[in-house]
């Protein structure tokens, strides 16, 4: 059971009461986590854990240091505060250190589902049984993962800051593979609430299984530049690099895609297709996300790109003041506007192209162009005359999310990317022209 607001407030106060520095900042978190794995059509590992973390940052005369630990008795907390203060006293001066944050007011919206808080090994096992049964009925091998957590965290300082939030999340994914070893696919869902997330082991295995069967016996198609249809999962995988590049400081410093010559940035320029609208919103009703950062800075609702124009870049507390730009932390969620069609209707509009259901092992290659590399996985298909004509071998891509946002042919209806439980990604399937596949892979 996670800390209530009162518990968190008491713990924060107990830490601050032991401080001798005028400026001490504390973050506390309690985390209840459960998970079960399955593979080869059988349960494998499972675990449950509870964890408390107390993190103390002490600041004095421009010097600062942080110490954290997992014990909450008075003596341990006292030792932790003392350690942070001693380390800070010895640290060199940081000209970028900021005064304490003071009062912040995140929204009061609840991001908790009691059904998720109550989950345990039994609930997870029941989902796994359904997934395995569904895969067996299709004569497929099934592997997967069920995971849920209940996180309560608070941040306080001696200048009036106290923010608290509690969030739950549940996710499940299933990979089905054909017995001949040539077909594989994965389906997954994630959400803050059990029902809304659509946790249903049988349904997930059925979805993954259908694609796995269709992906059997792939044929080789030469690499090159193709029109691609990207699922929401594939779009999110690539936009991850885009979000990481949204730093105002890096842009001014000349080491970013968003850099313009002579220390300027490209904020205000229309760099992308006019249909592109990207924003973040921690209090989105269907897809809530973390309301504040580990420093206690509240996540605002913000437009990053609108009508293809770069609207804003991220800036931390020091940089925001130094450069005179709004304080915008790296976002906790990402939404991209789309259109009405589903994946099938996008496919129907493509004369010749390739359907990518997901990407894998994506890594940044060149920050200057946000060039990334990675591979297609778990079902790649040739599209001919609006239909999937063949399962094809996987490709390695060397391509930038910038191309996705420039070469837009069509957008579909946004959906939560269920294979990326690490964040909140609500993005549309896309049709993109001239997507660069560099080589082929034999992997299934």
């Amino acid at each position: 059971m996670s800390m209530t607001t009162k518990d968190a407030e008491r713990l924060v106060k107990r830490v601050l009461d032991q401080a001798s520095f005028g400026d001490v900042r504390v973050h506390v978190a309690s985390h209840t986590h459960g998970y079960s794995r399955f593979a080869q059509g059988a349960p494998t590992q499972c675990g449950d854990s509870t964890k408390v973390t107390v993190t103390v940052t002490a600041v004095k005369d421009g010097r600062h240091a942080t110490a954290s630990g997992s014990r909450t008795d008075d003596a341990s907390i006292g030792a932790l505060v003392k350690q942070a203060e001693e380390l800070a006293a010895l640290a060199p001066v940081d000209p970028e250190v900021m005064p304490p944050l003071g009062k912040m007011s995140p929204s009061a919206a609840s991001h908790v589902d009691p059904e998720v808080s109550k989950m345990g090994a039994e609930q997870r096992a029941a989902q796994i049984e359904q997934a395995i049964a569904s895969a067996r009925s299709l004569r497929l091998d099934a592997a997967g993962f069920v995971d849920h957590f209940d996180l309560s965290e608070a941040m306080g300082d001696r200048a009036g800051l106290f923010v608290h939030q509690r969030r739950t999340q549940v996710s499940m994914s299933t990979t089905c593979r054909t017995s001949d070893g040539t077909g594989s696919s994965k389906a997954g869902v994630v959400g803050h609430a059990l029902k809304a997330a659509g946790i249903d082991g049988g349904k997930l295995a059925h979805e993954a299984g259908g694609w796995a069967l269709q992906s059997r016996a792939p044929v080789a198609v030469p690499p090159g530049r193709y029109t691609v249809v990207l699922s929401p999962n594939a779009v999110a995988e690539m936009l991850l690099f885009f979000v990481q590049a949204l730093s105002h400081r890096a842009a001014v410093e000349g080491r970013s895609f968003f850099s313009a010559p002579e220390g300027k940035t490209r904020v205000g320029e229309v760099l992308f297709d006019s249909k592109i609208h990207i924003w973040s919103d921690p209090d989105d009703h269907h897809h809530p996300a973390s309301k504040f950062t580990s420093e206690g800075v509240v996540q605002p609702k913000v437009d990053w790109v609108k009508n293809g124009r770069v609207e804003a870049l991220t800036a931390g507390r020091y940089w925001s003041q130094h450069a005179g730009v709004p304080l915008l932390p790296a976002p906790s969620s990402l939404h991209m506007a789309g259109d009405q069609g589903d994946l099938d209707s996008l496919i129907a509009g493509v004369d010749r192209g390739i359907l990518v259901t997901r990407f894998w092992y994506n890594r940044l290659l060149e920050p200057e162009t946000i060039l990334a590399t990675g591979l297609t996985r778990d079902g790649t298909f040739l599209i001919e005359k609006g239909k999937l004509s063949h399962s094809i071998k996987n490709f390695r891509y060397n391509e930038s999310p910038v191309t996705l946002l420039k070469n837009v042919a069509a957008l579909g209806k946004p959906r939560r990317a269920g294979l990326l439980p690490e964040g909140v990604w609500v993005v549309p399937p896309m049709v993109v022209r001239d997507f660069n596949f560099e080589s082929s892979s034999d992997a299934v």
Partner: protein
Amino acid sequence: MMPWMNTSRRSFLVSSSLASAGLLVARPAWAMPKGALVPAPDGPPPQAANEAAILAASRVLADEAVAKVAVEAAIAAGARYADARLVLYRTENIGVRDDHIDHVARHEGYGIGLRVIADGGWGFAATTDVSAKVAPQLAKQAVASAKRNGAMLRALGRPEVAWAPLAHPEGGTWVAPHEIDPFSVAIQDKADLLLQATGAMLKQPGVRFANAMVASVVEDKLFISSEGLRVHQIVPRLAPSLTAVAVDLKKGGFASREHEAPPMQGGWEYVQSLDLPGSAPELAAQANQKLHARSVEPGARHVILAPSNLWLTIHESIGHPTELDRAMGLEANFAGTSFIGPRDAGSLKLGSALVNLVADRTQPGGLATVGWDDDGVQSGRWDIVRDGIFVGWQTTRDQAGWIGEEHSRGCSYAQGHDGLAFQRMPNISLQPGKEGYTTEDLVNATENGVLVQGRGSWSIDQQRYNFQFSGQMFWEVKRGRITQPLRDVAYQANTIEFWHSCDMVGGEGTYRLGGAFGDGKGEPMQLNAVSHGCPPARFMANIINTSESARGAK
């Protein structure tokens, strides 16, 4: 073997203007971290000299009784096997940005994890609330989930967990050799060292930014099992980093150059041995050189991979596909499977006859070096690839039986107290060649190729066939000489074709360790620290021009 080979230093340097490049290729002092030169020994790993005193000061000992209670309660609740791990995981991160400190942070993760086998299934429970009161609750929770898993296995007609016996059913203690506890060094001294290094970088014209960091980790772990094993181990690890960024403010464009020093197991003396400030000017100069270097011509040709680059290629293309759990499909939902099948050991020709790879959890300085693994198995050394043939798997106690082996190879590891132990990679290293070649020999023997140094971008498919790696510095090799630096380079290959194309490997004197703290696997994902030793070696690969790939984004 290579009749036109000329190993003299003079022929290696094309002209005096490239002398600094040549000297670097000949390996400066900072590229030879202490401890990295020793090929793996046979027998158990050596220990720290003052082992007894370090162990006696361990804070986890205060809760040994709690671990025993948890194990006993699990057996009483119906488990047929149980182990408890008390883990104190201490980290310290110090980072500087340009001319000032950026962060000083210490973290202590401490807790207990209890793993059980009951009714044939696995169960696990962990908490940071380490107390005699909580131990029986932990046991109850772990045993209940194990029984639920066991019931599902029976209903599905699947076998229960097979737990291989220990070849050496004795516990013990082990402290990784180190001279200076990283937590005993004053914060100012660490910060000063890093600030000297970044300061030296910023003196180089064109270099606009410099970052330096050191991550220090000490893992203190007490393992108690229902088989009567008690294992107490303390392992310090260090990861230094130093980076220069050159920026062309007028035309736009930038390039960075990272130090090639690998993370290592050991004490602060390792960081001292690197002389970060002394190596900074050369690295900074290379950031500039890289910014203004010629863009590479794409196409298939020889690549000569320095140990600072090749270690990661070994990790991804040999390390992961020889994990037995991947080959059996246990990681199919996330990390992937393997191009190697469970029955391929002893028959699959994976590379040329020059390719010999050894797994070794006893290698001095290796990040995955331990006395015992997290199943209580004593560490060892064995062949993975011999004369180009794949011969050996990485296994744990619940996997050995799958391939008819009586004992585990000792590859079980869990990150922190709340990670579930499963099969993780040991140090796996390419053995040096008998000819005793130097990097110069490899360059001199190459008509047309690229020499790649340092770690860049990396990516490989889920069965480990198709990979692409970048690097830190790239040098054009023409007619046996290094001619100029290059930029925008990545190399691509198919794992089997790549290792079959290996036609030259350096000798013992060129062998170095590389490694990383962040080897990710499992769900929830856990990180493993692992090293890979290798000499420089020559292969065929497809060179990609990354600038050309990005033309759509410009």
